[in-house]
């Protein structure tokens, strides 16, 4: 009996001397591998045109039907995308999304990819319906910043002083001074005032054959 206890203790003591594998999250972050399937990013071409051509293939491929694409004709004088059409509205219901990556595989122009950002918790459901502004990569050089910082767009955006256009209102709320202290975390009304108007329509799932 004592032999067994001694053996077990010896093993435990050995473990105490080995390096811990835990990370001090959130201060320390685990780098995401290149294929990481986190929150989506809508990409642009180098000239600023959006890659998305509003073809809705991503919405068709999505197994849970959480993408809504409202496409419109491009104005030839001021095109938004190089194609005939572009996505006027593009919404992903992140609460419903299962991060399967089928949308990225379906997209013919590589307009949508799943990015490295995975900390998506929020206090309000509306903010978890990502609009096109939330998803679209925002500024020139974004690709580079994404490559430099493997934590990706999300982490990068939070550190930007004068936030680039297209930052999720969630950041605006978190950055507001004293918002947390005053209103109390988790209260649904917390930080409501002072938010950019953001009333997304909840993504409508594409029609699916019920049978």
């Amino acid at each position, binding site marked *: 009996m004592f032999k067994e206890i001694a053996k*077990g203790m010896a093993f435990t003591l050995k*473990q105490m001397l080995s390096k811990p594998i835990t990370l001090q999250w959130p201060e320390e972050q685990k780098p995401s591998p290149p*294929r*990481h399937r986190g929150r989506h990013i809508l990409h642009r071409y180098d000239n600023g045109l959006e890659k998305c051509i509003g073809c809705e*293939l991503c919405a068709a*491929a999505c197994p849970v039907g959480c993408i809504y694409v409202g496409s419109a004709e491009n104005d030839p004088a001021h095109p938004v995308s190089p194609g005939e059409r572009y996505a006027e509205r593009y919404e992903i219901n992140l609460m419903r999304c299962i991060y399967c*990556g*089928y949308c990225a595989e379906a997209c013919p122009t590589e307009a949508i990819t799943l990015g490295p950002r995975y900390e998506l918790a929020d206090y309000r459901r509306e903010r978890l319906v990502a609009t096109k502004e939330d998803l679209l990569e925002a500024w020139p050089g974004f690709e580079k910043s994404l490559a430099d910082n493997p934590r990706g767009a999300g982490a990068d955006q939070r550190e930007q002083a004068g936030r680039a256009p297209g930052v999720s209102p969630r950041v605006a709320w978190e950055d507001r001074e004293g918002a947390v202290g005053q209103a109390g975390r988790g209260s649904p009304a917390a930080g409501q005032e002072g938010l950019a108007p953001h009333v997304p329509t909840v993504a409508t799932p594409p029609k699916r054959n019920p049978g």
Partner: protein
Amino acid sequence: MTAALPPATPPPTGEPDEYARARETLGVPSHLEAIELTQIDDDTMELNMGPMHPSTHGVLRLVVNLDGEVVREMRPDIGFLHTGFERSFESHTYQQCIPFTDRMDYLAPPINNLGFSLAVEKLLGIEVPLRGQYIRVIMAELARIGSHLIWFGTHALDLGATTPFLYAWREREKILDINELVSGVRMMTSFIRVGGLMADVPDEFSPMVEDVIHTYPGFIDDYELLITKNPIWLERTRGTGVISVEDALSYGVSGPTLRGSGVPYDLRKAQPYSSYDHFEFDVPIGSHGDVYDRYLVRMQEMRESVRIIKQAFENLPDGPVNTLDRKVALPPRNEINTSMESLIHHFKLVTEGFRTPRGHVYAAVESPRGELGFYLVSDGSNRPYRCKVRAPSFSNLCALPYMCRGELIADVVAVIGSIDIVLGDVDR
């Protein structure tokens, strides 16, 4: 925002005969009736265990009839994790069903993917290239080790050995890292797809798998050092929850639970799929059919899995991983921009999927819990007409009351741990 809610359906009045009438006309079995126990005699006590019990490994409710501390009878009550995946399959294209299969037996998602893919591939009559098959084997065996590590940690924890729990989870982390590397997520990988894989493995895959091959046998030895000859462990597990070969077979028990009773039935040997016949490995069996033998079988199985991974990894052939059948697999990315035909194929496959011939198939794989089978009925459309999952956890759970009869209530926990159920697999 202030849209009026539709009027609520009036609740049933609760008249007993109203329910009875509904049951009669609809043929609905009464849930409550099904778990009602026969009062054996006045000295027995009825005890509810779960669904929030930490040792039932999920949301399983056990209604236990006790005579003192001895279990007289037991009824498992399942369905708390019912997800309706089998029904969901019917309204999704074949490729879209893959993410659902991940979530059934969530401790070994690649093996679920593999089972479903094999069934559809059998229906289509296509074969995956050898490289694809070998990578499937590597991923499946990694998943088996990962699942057994969780079983080992929680099973030991249930019986009071808190030490190995975190070690097992720490080691499993390496497997999850490999999952994350190849597929992008740690658990719900959806990596194995109908017709092949999501993509070929990246370069970093090799060192990580080599690391597993080299370090895991040592880890397993460490666990055995802690547990296998531990006197408390032996006291608790030997001679507990015995099931004989005949009873195990008649209950449809499979996997390590069956092999612990001494039946060398392993689908990887009995009906080799995904080129398992190319690899040399043994099927460990027990002889007493008790909790301890099932423990030994699973520990040995992890070593065999490492052996399989080693062989598959060393002999990994070059070549494509996906079937070349363009009616099933998406065309390569670079072709989409240059070839109209490929683009049309891409659109067709994404929006409609592929059609399968009419018919029905059954394909089974050896999951960490036993025989995981997919029975698919196809009406010739792009979705399954019906998909029935033969879940190993469900069949093994059916034998639980039998194994627990006459045991002490404290040993019920040991027996549950030893059949290694996943409630997502039981309820689907």
